[in-house]
């Protein structure tokens, strides 16, 4: 009923407006020199507004952006991103200037005559070749980095971890001493065996299931992703890592953590960001202050609680990691 009320108010406003327009002048329809002059200046003003906003965002919003990559592979992502952003930033400043400045400069006047200028192969060649040259750099570097990230060489001996998604939680499984994951399938899901691990598989026995992801600093980690219901996406923004979890297939992604959680908390960018967040939290009356942690979040729409599907990631030294892992029970112990 309330909706009807709102619609009724809307209609009432519309009708009264309609009545008011009876006395309004609907005769001015084509731009005069005066309009051209005014609108041309407005465009110049808009250019100033746009520049101000770009500069504001680039400088003052920098603090909220993700800190430097916490994985070794992600370093090149950051470099490539910086190169791309500089290039498009410069292009943006120049091109927007041309658009709005020309609009201002050539605003129409009765006595002016436009130049008849229909073609110039030279100019067109310039703006076909110039972007092409820039693209060679971006494509070349991009593809090199893509291969860098996506292909894991056999001899790198990565630590294998399975990340398992379901509505709306994450689990992880470590491959154990043999560093090989036992097979899994939804048909094996029963009771405590929530990840559907095939306990008839000899590789499954020493696997360890956990709800918090621990990673050793400096060792390559190969993630194997599975999902039991719908698409999810394992997004680890600090490591520049993301991969979809697809029911019916196993996907993978690998990276090498570069800083432990403790080290990352000392990082200058992180300190600035955390300070900013805590200031805001204090103003809003939040009781706990925020402390930096790596996080894995779901980044593919997966249902009502998609917005709160997360898992904490802890990066620690190899020793700490081994201690922690040794304390976790194997599946052979937990699943009888």
């Amino acid at each position, binding site marked *: 009923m*309330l909706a009807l009320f*709102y619609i009724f108010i809307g209609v009432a406003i519309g009708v009264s407006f309609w009545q008011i327009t009876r006395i309004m002048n*609907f005769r*001015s*329809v*084509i*731009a005069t020199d005066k*309009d*051209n002059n005014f609108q041309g200046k407005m*465009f110049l003003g*808009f250019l100033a507004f746009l520049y101000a*906003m770009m500069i504001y*965002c680039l400088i003052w919003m920098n603090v*909220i952006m*993700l800190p430097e990559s916490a994985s070794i592979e992600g370093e090149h*992502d950051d470099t490539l991103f910086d190169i791309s952003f500089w290039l*498009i930033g410069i292009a*943006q400043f120049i091109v927007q200037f041309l*658009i709005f400045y*020309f*609009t201002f400069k*050539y605003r*129409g006047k009765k006595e*002016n005559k*436009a130049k*008849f*200028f*229909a*073609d*110039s192969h030279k100019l067109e060649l310039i703006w*076909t070749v110039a972007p*092409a040259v820039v*693209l060679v750099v971006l494509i070349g570097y*991009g*593809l090199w980095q893509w*291969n860098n*990230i*996506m292909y894991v060489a056999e001899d790198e001996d990565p630590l294998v971890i399975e990340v398992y998604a379901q509505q709306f939680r994450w689990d992880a499984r470590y491959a154990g001493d043999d560093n090989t994951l036992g097979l899994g399938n*939804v048909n094996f*899901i029963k009771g405590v065996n929530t990840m559907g691990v095939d306990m008839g598989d000899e590789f499954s026995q020493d696997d360890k299931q956990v709800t918090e992801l621990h990673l050793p600093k400096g060792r390559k980690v190969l993630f194997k992703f599975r999902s039991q219901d*719908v*698409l999810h*996406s394992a*997004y680890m*923004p600090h490591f*520049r*890592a*993301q*991969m*979809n979890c697809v*029911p*019916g297939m196993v996907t993978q992604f690998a990276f090498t953590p570069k800083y432990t959680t403790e080290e990352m908390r000392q990082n200058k960018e992180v300190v600035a960001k955390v300070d900013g967040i805590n200031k805001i*939290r204090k103003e809003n009356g939040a009781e706990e202050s*925020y402390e930096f942690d790596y996080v894995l*979040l779901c*980044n*593919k729409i997966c*249902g009502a609680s*998609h*917005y709160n599907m997360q898992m904490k990631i802890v990066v620690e030294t190899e020793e700490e990691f081994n201690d922690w892992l040794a304390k976790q029970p194997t599946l052979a112990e937990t699943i009888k």
Partner: protein
Amino acid sequence: MSEHHHKETFVTKYIFSQDHKMISKQFLITGMIMGVIGVFMSMLFRLQLAWPEKSFSIIEAFLGPHQTDGVMNPDMYLALVTIHGTIMVFFVLTAGLSGTFSNLLIPLQIGARDMASGFLNMISYWLFFISSVVMVISLFVEAGPASAGWTIYPPLSALPQAIPGSGAGMTLWLVSMAIFIASSLIGSLNYIVTILNLRTKGMKMTRLPLTMWAFFITAIIGVVSFPVLLSAALLLIFDRSFGTSFYLSDIFISGEVLHYQGGSPVLFEHLFWFLGHPEVYIVLLPALGITSEIISTHSRKPIFGYRAMVGSIMAIAFLSTIVWGHHMFISGMNPFLGSVFTFTTLLIAIPSAVKAFNYITTLWKGNLQLNPAMLFSIGLVSTFVTGGLTGLVLGDSALDINIHDTYFVVAHFHLVMGVSAIFGMYAGIYHWFPKMYGRMMNKSMGYWHFWVTMISAYGVFFPMHFIGLAGLPRRYYTNTAFPMFDDVADTNVVITIFALIGGAAQLIFLANFFISIYRGKKATQNPWNSNTIEWTTPVEHLHGNWPGKIPEVHRWAYDYSKKVDPEDDDSDYLHGQDWVSQTTPLLEGEESS
């Protein structure tokens, strides 16, 4: 034909009309109604994003059972973003934009009495109308409308257990889209046939206005890619209703293992994006075509590089069909495919850059008549550049990994295809309103409409890039579950305020539009002194467009400000005025351009 006046009743004239001009108005009005619904939804979910726990009586009023004390439920949030996307992409920017202007302009600009098949044209509109009605009905389904995102990836869209909207709401969504695709295909085929066959004497393909080229190529992309979406939707319907396993495999949900075996959601993603990416250009190319026409006319200058413009439309269209994989870099497909798609995707930057620079060169040394249509066209060039440039970041697979599905993407595509295409549509409406309704729109309201919209469009989408770079995923009901996103809350409030202002500004347009239909100043035959031949028809509409013979065309559409001495910019106009209609024969010794 024109002498042959058959008696028209109200029904044949206004409802089941076969006249392309009336059908275009029907498309426009239906598209506008859908647009109001789509934009209103975005206002609601922007409220939720800015003030997550606050109660709003407007949400209480409109969301009925899908809200609790004026706060929307999480699955309703997802439903709103889903339907907002669907409506804006398909119903407003495909049917509303292409349907309106292709229908209005194709016969008028090529010099034809009507579309090749007036009957199929009528069917095309009514299928669109039915699909709109079905989509609106789906909003009132008890469990809520489709809510798996406008990309409806299965299994989420296939399993009602996964999200309530995947029940009857999703069924209606699929039915609506199937009808929509039929409408779009019939329309597109009609456009192609008409442009190829019904051009008037002298209207060679190389003399077609750029709007015609854009609509022509758009129709071809539509015919190539829409059937693939139809098959994707049919297979999804089979999976949902008849137990097949095209997209589903190994699923455990609500405590039981489902029977599906051997399918793959990745297959759906391929099929969906095989349409989904060309769709971006189905939306954008008509807007660019309209802009080409308007920028040239209102600059009183020929469009710069006509052949390059046609070439780049073709290049964009071709490339658009081989880049769909850039939506799927991290879908689990083979990384080698990712390399290929990165390469093809970034190539699109070249024809796009050519188009942008050609627009700018057209402005250079023009005599710019800054009418509302021109303002929106210039706005389009600006947002097209801003949004397009970030495509260089997203199209690079290595960089996409970390910004995929964040607000960076949302900002990118809203600027480059959403705002740009809407601006193109507004430009078209302001420019051709006199042709549609025989009256002019008010310019002051047009100026207000443009400036508020332009400022709010940038206010909404520019800062949005940066909250994306903070790692904020899209389609989150609220960001409060992650303290690391607490510092984007302020920006979200700013964005919402701009969005509300921008949304309200569209009311200025609606008022201007409807008042001008009845009270606008009567239009003259050629109010913008334009060269194209739609302005040689009488102001009053008549079936068959031209009272006598269809005029013959002697030149291209862009002989603006042609001078006696081509080398001297200040010499007299060759034809005594700064425009030369396409119907004017060449003077003796005049070089054709």
